[in-house]
């Protein structure tokens, strides 16, 4: 039994070690471009996984995710800004906030940044809970429109709360705390949590009410509960992604967090497969990579806007030809990599089969 469990952990463990080694090489190489790309990819993967939980698992189509990301970015950035900078830069901040500066270091590790990320994410989670209690009762188009409304509200608030956000002016001078390792560790946390949720009882409720709401109700599933859990956890991780983004890009304005980002993440989710954790990762890799290539092509050919057109066409092709995306709800059964029979046998049965039954 323990041997079996060890072998199950082998596949994911091997992948984690390999990627970690790759990141160490990348960091040592000093290739700023590739490091930036990897960080970008990590942040997008977190966003896609968070949206997968919120929308993919539950079928509740949320367009408000980037609003949570924006709040996470601003709140964490305000919290980590050193006191001196706050004075000069956000001079009208109320006293209780002006004194906060989460820029402490524990040796080389900026734990203040970790604190700010978590505090911001908890605050965003509380907001998501309030919003979700109302919005998760809706279904179909209604929930899409309502969550879109949330995104618009966040944008308006960010533009107008200039005491905190500098309004439409760029918020800059954010401490560049985000590096490969922060993104990698948060990504591992997100993958683990989302994966566990999928296989948990509440995850089954999410999938069940997505497939057939009436049948789920008929056997006693409280539809609001699993949806709210998904919405709130998704908001937490979206906020984390916002915090990582803010401390990576170091200057941004409310315009960044809008439709373009929203649809980019949705494209990654849909191409990867709504409901598949491994699909989200593949979707993010594919789209981030493609965007990068297309950007080169744009620069070379001066056909600016080409990348958006290509992404839109891919999106349309996927939803007409292969609606479930690359993987649908299935997973790459990494945990069977070192089991007898390996990946091939795993494909024959549904990997989520519960062994205890």
């Amino acid at each position, binding site marked *: 039994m323990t041997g079996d469990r060890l072998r199950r952990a082998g596949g994911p463990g091997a992948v984690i070690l390999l990627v970690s080694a790759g990141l160490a090489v990348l960091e040592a190489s000093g290739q700023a471009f590739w490091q930036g790309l990897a960080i970008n990819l990590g942040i997008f993967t977190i966003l896609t996984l968070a949206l997968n939980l919120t929308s993919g698992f539950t079928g509740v189509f949320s367009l408000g995710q980037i609003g949570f990301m924006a709040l996470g970015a601003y709140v964490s950035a305000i919290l980590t800004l050193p006191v001196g900078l706050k004075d000069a830069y956000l001079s009208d901040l109320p006293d209780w906030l002006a004194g906060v500066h989460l820029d402490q270091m524990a040796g080389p590790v900026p734990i203040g940044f970790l604190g700010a990320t978590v505090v911001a994410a908890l605050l965003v989670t509380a907001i998501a809970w309030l919003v979700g209690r109302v919005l998760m009762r809706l279904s179909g188009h209604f929930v899409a429109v309502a969550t879109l409304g949330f995104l618009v509200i966040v944008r308006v608030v960010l533009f107008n709360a200039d005491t905190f956000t500098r309004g439409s002016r760029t918020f800059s001078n954010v401490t560049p705390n985000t590096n490969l390792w922060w993104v990698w560790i948060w990504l591992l946390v997100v993958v683990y949590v989302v994966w566990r949720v999928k296989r948990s009882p509440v995850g*089954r409720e999410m999938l069940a009410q997505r497939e057939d709401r009436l*049948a789920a*109700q*008929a*056997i006693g599933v409280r539809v609001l509960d699993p949806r709210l859990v998904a919405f709130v956890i998704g908001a937490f991780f979206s906020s984390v992604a916002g915090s990582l983004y803010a401390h990576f890009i170091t200057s941004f304005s409310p315009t960044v967090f809008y439709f373009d980002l929203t649809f980019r993440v949705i494209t990654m989710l849909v191409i990867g497969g709504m409901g598949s954790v491994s699909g989200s990762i593949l979707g993010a890799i594919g789209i981030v990579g493609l965007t990068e290539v297309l950007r080169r092509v744009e620069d070379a050919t001066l056909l600016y806007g080409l990348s958006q057109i290509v992404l839109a066409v891919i999106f349309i092709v996927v939803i007409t030809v292969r609606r479930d995306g690359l993987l649908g709800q299935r997973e790459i059964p990494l945990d069977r990599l070192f089991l007898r029979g390996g990946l091939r046998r795993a494909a024959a049965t549904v990997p989520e089969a519960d062994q205890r039954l």
Partner: protein
Amino acid sequence: MLEVVDLHVRYGAIRALQGVSLRVAEGELVALIGSNGAGKTTTLRTISGLLRPTQGSITFEGVDITRAASDRIVSLGISHCPEGRRIFGGLTVAENLRLGAVSRPRSEAAAVAEDLAMVLELFPLLRERRDQAGGTLSGGEQQMLAIGRALMSRPRLLLLDEPSLGLAPLMVERIFATIAQLKERGRTILLVEQNVHHAFDVADRAYVLETGRITLDGPAGVLRSDPKVEQSYLGVGGVAL
């Protein structure tokens, strides 16, 4: 056990139920028959809290459940096996069955395991297929899964909506044999069925529903020979649909 009094339900302007009253006593198997659109499914859905009545009351074991939420009704002991099976095709057979016990607290884990064993004994086919996605089962197997899923909440009253719908004759026989078996074990069942012959074979009593009203009721054996029932539902010479 279950007492429905003067139930009215509307879908917008359409009045689906116009004063349905019926009762089910403990240990009874009661059939609700009627043609398409008579309101049979609406009646079951209203009992299980999926639809809200505009008028009337539903009482289960002395508790008024007229406007209770569906999950509360399941916890009180009513389980609804919906028309068209509606199993979760993307989840495995085992996951479907586990979801059936969603309303039960963690402390009942041992009892849930017992019920699972009971369901798998009732439907040995499901044991073989338990790691298979529900969507890959045949229609009859899906019906077994739907009934098994409904049993997992250990209901004191089971609502069965058209269990024979769209099944091959042989499978219909098997499903009804199972229903008879459940009745023998003392389950209380409210059965909605268009296959009137089979329904009368297993039922103690029956109600006939026509355009939202109960027009006839009585012991199954008496209704079977009622000239009106013979003509409308059994067909001349007693050939079922």
